[in-house]
């Protein structure tokens, strides 16, 4: 399926990450945006509203982030691709409905423009402190998909990718941006509508009365219908059977919830994307995502200039985590260097997946702008000198 040209602003633009996100959403066919105002995510809704009439999109500003994601899920069932955009404190409030979205298997996109926490933190500074919250914040067992853009162009591309994943797997997908990417003015090339491929929603088209909202196809993904088509279906956030009726026993819990996890875990090869540079001969690999990967690539180049064999692995999808690839590399390289704009989140996954076979050097970063190339170089330097297999945090200050 190709993009609807009315939403695609083909051309080369010099726009911020937030604007690029709105453009990506419109190009992907998003026609419902629910928001609650929060810094530094505001400009997405401003841009979206500027274009709403021409594109035929609907917008609502709700009374809080709880109701916002509830409205987005409701809107998605009308057949409109739906999205919300928020920041850390808002994401905290959205946890309830991430769980509902998972349980109702509702496609939707949540853009989290991360700011420094905890609590109210620094509203206008970038951070990568919500990575674990996005993955584990809602109660119960679930899998979701999270993408981490590092530039305006990626903001555009990954927002489209997020909508495609959400329709493909009937799941909420998070785009983990941050304040730096959100406000960075960069060149964004928006292709022609016919060059943008979109994942169509998989509809049930059988007779009225025969629709089962959670009857899974071979690939574990159930089919959807829209509200108002006459199917008169029922869905519930309780543990349910194929009909969407609540069934309160352990067998049904297994029947219902196991596929929620399996429908992602069985398709990690299709979902996971990493960008590898200079991996082949590397002794040390910098694993990074989002804006940190800008510093990581620069540090890699500088280290190569000094004759050190350093490679870079950039995570496009942070969740599900590319555990197979990291485990594969763990036996081959001396060390992973992990710069993150937090005090240690995704590094825990790197440590887990390296099974003690490689050193893991973590560079903590508690909100002093963006990741510094110097810090990464220092960590690389330590990694070169210390090849004992031990996890360590690089002492920087």
């Amino acid at each position, binding site marked *: 399926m190709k993009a609807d040209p009315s939403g695609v602003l083909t051309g080369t633009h010099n726009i911020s990450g937030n604007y690029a996100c709105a453009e990506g959403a419109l190009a992907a066919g998003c026609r419902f945006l629910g928001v609650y105002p929060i810094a530094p995510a505001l400009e997405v809704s401003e841009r979206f509203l500027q274009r709403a009439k021409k594109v035929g999109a609907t917008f609502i500003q709700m009374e809080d982030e709880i109701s916002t994601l509830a*409205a987005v899920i409701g809107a998605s069932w009308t057949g409109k691709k739906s999205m919300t955009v928020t920041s850390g404190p808002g994401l905290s409030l959205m946890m309830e409905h991430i769980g509902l979205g998972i349980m109702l298997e509702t496609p939707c996109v949540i853009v989290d423009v991360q700011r420094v926490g905890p609590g109210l933190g620094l509203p206008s500074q970038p951070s990568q402190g919500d990575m674990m919250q996005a993955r584990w914040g809602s109660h119960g067992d679930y899998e979701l998909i999270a993408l981490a853009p590092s530039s305006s162009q990626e903001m555009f591309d990954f927002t489209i990718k997020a909508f495609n994943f959400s329709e493909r797997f009937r799941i909420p997908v998070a785009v983990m941006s941050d304040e730096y990417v959100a406000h960075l003015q960069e060149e964004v090339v928006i292709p022609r509508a016919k060059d943008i491929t979109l994942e169509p929603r998989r509809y049930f088209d059988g007779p009225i009365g025969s629709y089962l909202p959670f009857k899974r196809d071979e690939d574990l993904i159930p089919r959807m219908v829209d509200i108002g088509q006459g199917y*008169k279906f*029922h869905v519930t956030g309780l543990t349910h059977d194929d009909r969407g009726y609540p069934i309160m026993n352990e067998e049904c819990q297994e029947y219902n919830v196991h596929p929620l996890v399996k429908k992602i875990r069985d398709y990690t090869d299709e979902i996971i994307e990493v960008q590898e540079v200079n991996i082949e001969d590397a002794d040390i690999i910098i694993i990074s995502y989002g804006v940190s990967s800008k510093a990581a690539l620069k540090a890699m180049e500088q280290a190569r200039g000094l004759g050190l064999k350093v490679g870079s692995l950039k995570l496009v999808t942070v969740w599900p985590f590319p555990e197979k690839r990291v485990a594969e590399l763990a036996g081959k390289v001396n060390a992973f260097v992990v710069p993150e704009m937090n005090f240690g989140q995704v590094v825990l996954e790197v440590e887990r997946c390296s099974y003690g076979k490689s050193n893991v050097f973590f560079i903590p970063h508690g909100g002093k702008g963006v990741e510094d190339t110097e810090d990464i170089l220092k960590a690389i330097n330590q990694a070169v000198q210390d090849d004992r297999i031990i996890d360590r945090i690089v002492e920087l200050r």
Partner: protein
Amino acid sequence: MEIPKTMQQEETQGSRSGMDITHPMENVLRMDRIPHIWCPGCGIGLAVTAFAAALEKAEIDLNKVAIVSGIGCTGRVAGYVKLDSFHTTHGRAIAFATGIKVANPDMKVVVFSGDGDLIAIGGNHFIHAARRNIDMLVICVNNFIYAMTGGQVAPTTPLAAYATTCPFGCVEPPFNIPYLAESSGAVYVARWTTLHVRRLMNSFVEALNKKGFSVVEAISPCAQYYSRINRLGDGLDMMRFYHDNTEIRHGEDTKNLDIAYQGKIIMGKFVDRERPSYTDRYNEWLSEIKDDENEPG
């Protein structure tokens, strides 16, 4: 995956006995979900019956009606009504329904939930949907207590009434739901008890055909918790109380509708007015924008 045996629904009464029994409301109720979960003496079933009758009487396209419930005893209603139906999170039914209505204005949206769900945890969504005048019907079954969780004090529990979390009597004044609805912007506000099923049904019919945020409060006996803790007898005794202690005062000022413990309950249609709905205003705003006026360069 095979469907486990414990999940397969038992056959319904009719087919088991081999007789051709059809329920008169089969058209609007999910018969495959009967029996329902509500206790003997509960009034929610009566409110659902009144609603089901109203759906048929209102002469609206049932394919274009969606029902959303939150959590609690009344939160289960969506699961028994044969419409596009959603059983959502605690207190957020109105927010979820707002998304449906705004994204697809052709739908008639009904929120059917309880007092704790709509007025406590969902209180913020209630007042904001009323303020925006989202075109939806909110049916609030008020049984003065959190019943699903075993009888805790609610924001509607009358002063001095007992509940498990106020063993010495409720010390918080309750919300007057019609007053809250009217002052927040609702265009249609009515209150009945579940004894007055025909009047309740007529209010549902009126409200289903009303454009804007409509609230119908249905006061219901909770024979299992509210009544037992307060020693008010069984469901029938509470119905008798409603019979003897209610008064119809249409158009009464909603300020005067507080409910005291075992006090007189004023019922009727209190508010029926016109205000532009959210969708009206949104479309008006869109039509005023000239093409490309707002288009970024």
